[in-house]
């Protein structure tokens, strides 16, 4: 048996290294795939939003609730707007609701609305989504444009690492916009708390 221990350990080690490499490359592939899907969704949603008839828009506006964000559907994805973070050179669509399948496609609204200044957006820690959120610093600009073209400009107030059960800290933060994702290891959350910039929301030019 001792004679065989060396080759067995070598084989087991090689298998584990292969598994690690496979998982690493799968994660990178998934990340790139998520970036491509989000890019296609962004283009599709912009196009769909542009094609909306005026009448349909006014009927939708009549049926929407105060504070409720307008939704544009593209290929079965309900989108409430787009998020732009110039410091990370990031522009992403934001889906109206979250589940784990949607999160693989794009950031999702978890709570609130930009119209009631309590919007919370969650996304995967893919590099193409919110993976670089921890690089933001106080004073950076974040823009959320809703599907009516209303541009909401925010300034990063603080970046914090939170425990996974800090729901109240995110939902009732008093900040107009909160973005969060998992830390690299997944044990905690990186949350970016934003306040409205001095300028009021304005229609997109």
């Amino acid at each position, binding site marked *: 048996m001792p004679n065989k221990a060396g080759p067995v350990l070598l084989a087991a080690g090689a298998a584990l*290294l292969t598994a690690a490499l496979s998982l690493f490359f799968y994660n990178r592939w998934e990340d790139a795939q998520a970036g491509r899907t989000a890019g296609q969704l962004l283009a599709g949603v912009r196009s769909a939003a542009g094609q909306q008839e005026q009448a349909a828009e006014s009927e939708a506006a009549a049926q929407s609730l105060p504070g409720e964000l307008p939704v544009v559907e593209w290929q079965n994805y309900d989108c409430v707007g787009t998020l732009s973070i110039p410091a990370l050179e990031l522009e992403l669509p934001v889906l109206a609701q979250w589940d784990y399948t949607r999160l693989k496609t794009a950031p999702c609204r978890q709570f609130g609305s930009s119209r009631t200044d309590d919007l919370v957006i969650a996304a995967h820690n893919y590099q193409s989504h919110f993976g670089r959120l921890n690089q933001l610093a106080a004073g950076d600009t974040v823009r959320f444009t809703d599907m009516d073209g209303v541009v909401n400009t925010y300034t990063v107030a603080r970046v914090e690492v939170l425990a996974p059960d800090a729901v109240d800290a995110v939902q009732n933060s008093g900040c107009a916009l909160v973005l969060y994702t998992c830390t690299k*290891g997944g044990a905690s959350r990186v949350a970016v708390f934003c306040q409205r910039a001095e300028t009021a929301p304005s229609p997109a030019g």
Partner: protein
Amino acid sequence: MKQKIKRLAALLLSLTLAVGLAAPAFAQSTEVVFKGQSEGVDLGQGSEYTATDLFGGLKNVMPGDTLTETIRLRSEAGDCDEVRLYLRARAHDEADNPLTYSEAHENADGKDQAGVAGARDETVATMQEFLAQLTLRIYSGDTLLYEATPDQTGALASYVPLATLARGESCTLRVELKVPAELDNRFANRVGEVDWVFLAEGITHAAPGGTLIQTGQWNWPVLVLGVAGLALVVCGIVLLRRRGKDHAQ
């Protein structure tokens, strides 16, 4: 506090007005009970004009009348903690939202002027002409929500929040209709229909102790597998070398 909000019901109710000649109109009250997502809404009886007519007291109105009717909105929803209510008016349109009042009843109660079976006297255009003569005020408690001629959606073009009701709570809408004294015979026996959409949202307060969404990729196993694999490989190499030395000796 985490909340789960779900639309319970969007309810189309009508305010049907009928101008008469003799019968007096009385102030009345109606109750709409929101019973929750599974049981829906209890509307009461409606009227002969429409099954969803809330306004039994606004029939046979006379020129010069000012009539008041109250609607009590009550929540008995057992499948949510609170019900949030909104109201909007929906304009009639021949194609998208045609008139719904009963032509048979219009005929039976003598309001039908043409007497042609299967054809209502009113079209959207004639009804709007009639409604444009009247003044409608809607109060939620003491707050004036709407004041216009009832052919216009006005301030109710979009949803207006009415109240948030816990189970057993209620709120009151007071509807005041003013018929001008100078309304001439041209408008006798006319019927008007106004559509209101009540929207009920059920709010469930989640129990504390929830967690934020797990948004991480499986990155940590890469490190764990990599380190473990490397350790095993090193151990394996050490053992093999040791075996090689033993063989050499």
